[in-house]
């Protein structure tokens, strides 16, 4: 039985923890969080609770899930690496490149596996798009358009941390990083970015429009929104031989009872997209994490991938702040 420690008490901590209910050979053994949310999560899961890592019995833990606000990823990962436990850390990898590099170095030094929760690589529509492009169905990709958007994260998250761009990175770093990772996966390295954002707006909304130019010559337009009402994602990839498009707002389901499900699962805190398939992308992600450790094979999405996605996100943020294109 693989034993997992959950660090955090918010929406993502709960999402990760609940996946373990479906895994026959793994279980959550404890929750670490200084906040009352964490205590409640531990109680709900009927597992041990600790306010900090110092209260953890590491002999009883095999893997750790870091599900805390971004700026705190580094110190937790570095500490857990010292305990020689493998780590699945939520995205974005960190708030700064220096933090990300330190996390990667610490894990390498301790010979510990580090995976970052770039779950979009497990969303079937994105997986299928990648497969179709690789199979040559649309030829050489010329222009991609991606949308990821919903409303501004509610204020009842821990210290309303999303609303503090110094912490969350805003839409460029927290939200669009999913699409930057996906595009890098499909289209290769990014050469430069140019972006505009509504930073500074006080109405609890944020919208970023980013243009990416790839080393290959391809172009992508990425919209990251915390200014829309209901959460959804869209993509369109246009190539010289065809085009593929997807719209989560229109991606229906064949299951009858799904008609009664809400379009999004609102857990306490951040909206987590509703799923349309048997195994949620989060389950696929966690199963892949655990399997890769057990089989001693590489992760499908590496910490290095996460670092590069962060680099793009930070460049987009910088461009939006300076009004100038940013080379990578």
């Amino acid at each position, binding site marked *: 039985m693989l034993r997992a420690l959950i660090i955090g008490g918010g929406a993502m901590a709960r999402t990760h923890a609940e996946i373990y209910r479906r895994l026959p050979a793994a279980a959550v053994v404890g929750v670490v969080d200084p906040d009352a949310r964490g205590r409640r999560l531990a109680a709900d899961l009927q597992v041990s609770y600790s306010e900090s890592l110092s209260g953890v019995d590491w002999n009883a833990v095999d893997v750790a899930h870091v599900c805390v606000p971004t700026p705190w990823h580094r110190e937790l990962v570095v500490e857990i690496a010292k305990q020689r436990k493998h780590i699945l850390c939520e995205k974005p990898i960190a708030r700064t490149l220096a933090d990300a590099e330190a996390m990667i170095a610490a894990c390498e030094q301790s010979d510990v596996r580090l995976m970052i929760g770039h779950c979009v690589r497990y969303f079937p529509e994105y997986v299928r798009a990648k497969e179709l492009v690789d199979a040559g169905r649309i030829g*050489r990709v*010329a*222009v991609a*358009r991606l949308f990821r958007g919903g409303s501004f994260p509610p204020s009842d998250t821990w210290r309303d941390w999303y609303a503090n761009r110094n912490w969350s990175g805003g839409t460029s770093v927290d939200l669009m990083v999913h699409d930057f990772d996906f595009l890098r996966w499909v289209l290769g390295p990014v050469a*430069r970015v*140019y972006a*505009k954002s*509504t930073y500074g*707006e006080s*109405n609890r*909304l944020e*919208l970023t*429009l980013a*243009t990416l*130019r790839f080393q290959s*010559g*391809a*172009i992508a*337009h990425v*919209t990251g*929104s915390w*200014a*829309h*009402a209901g959460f959804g994602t869209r993509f369109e990839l*246009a*190539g*010289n*031989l*065809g*085009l593929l498009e997807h719209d989560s707002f229109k991606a229906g389901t064949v299951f009858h009872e799904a008609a009664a499900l809400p379009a999004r699962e609102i857990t306490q805190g951040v909206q987590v997209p509703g799923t349309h398939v048997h195994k949620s992308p989060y389950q696929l992600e966690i199963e892949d994490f655990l399997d890769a450790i057990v089989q001693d094979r590489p992760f499908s999405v590496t910490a290095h991938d996460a670092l590069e996605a962060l680099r793009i996100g930070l460049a987009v943020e910088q461009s939006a702040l300076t*009004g*100038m*294109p940013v080379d990578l």
Partner: protein
Amino acid sequence: MTRIGILSTAHMHAHSYLSAIETLQDVSVTGVYDEDTGRGRQFCAAHGVPFRGDMEALLDESDAVLIAATNADHRRCVERAAARGVAILCEKPIATSVADAAAMVQAAESAGAPFYMALPVRFVRAAAELRKFVRAGKIGRILAMTGTNHGYMPGGWFIDRAASGGGAVMDHTSHVADLMRWIVGSDVVEVYAEIAERVHNRGIDDCGILTLGFANGVFATLDPSWSRLKTYPTWGDVTLEVVGTTGVLALDAFAPRVHVYAEAEDGQATHRYDYYGDDMDLWMVDEFVRSVRSGQRSDTLATGLDGLRALEVTMAAYESAERGRPVAITPWQP
């Protein structure tokens, strides 16, 4: 009876403009001039209208003209029509250089000849409703817009730089740039563009993403790509999303469609969108004819100056892509 002439059939919209005139009351086509005699005669035979090999003769017998020439030929047509005091509705883009556009606007102004642009998206009822919504403050202060005018690669003179002035960016910036200006009531002051020739390999730009900064602080992106191939169910689209402080509005001008799943002549399975929405060309020509007939300026049609402003955005985009940085627009002043 209002008498309308058509100058050139180089642009395929000549067909729909002619159909529009035939639908309207109290207006007739005096004739069609075409610099390409063979093409012109074929067009006239198909539509049963007189061919005119001499533009001056056609201008003599017309109250107004619809110009469907190549982009580079717009200037010649507009200057000749203006000189005769004939009212003008000209295809977009206005011209292939801002200098040409300025000469055209000034020529029409000096002659007192009404000069309008064929930018029909203003005549999609939904676009006008969206504009009213925005102007009434229903979504608060406007922050940003995202627009697309995707299309297929039209071939022919469109990909001959001497006649077109450019590819997709030249062809498909005007509609959305004009729509955006019309909706927010502000001009574009800065453009950044990524442009590529990557879809079609025809030696001219066929895709890109423009980022526009407006004088009033609104920012927008615009996608003019010829990214629809013959396998896509329709020629393209015109979409616009407007994000305000209290809401979002989205326009999909060609959304009214029936999906048709049927075999083509060669037995191949096809899926096509069959559009049944507003005939925007008809409403636009109707407004033009009304304006000509009444002698009153139209306040809904895009003017020659609007066309010039759209071209300034286009040219700034090309310059930005060349320089690799945002380009400030120095607006031409009459």
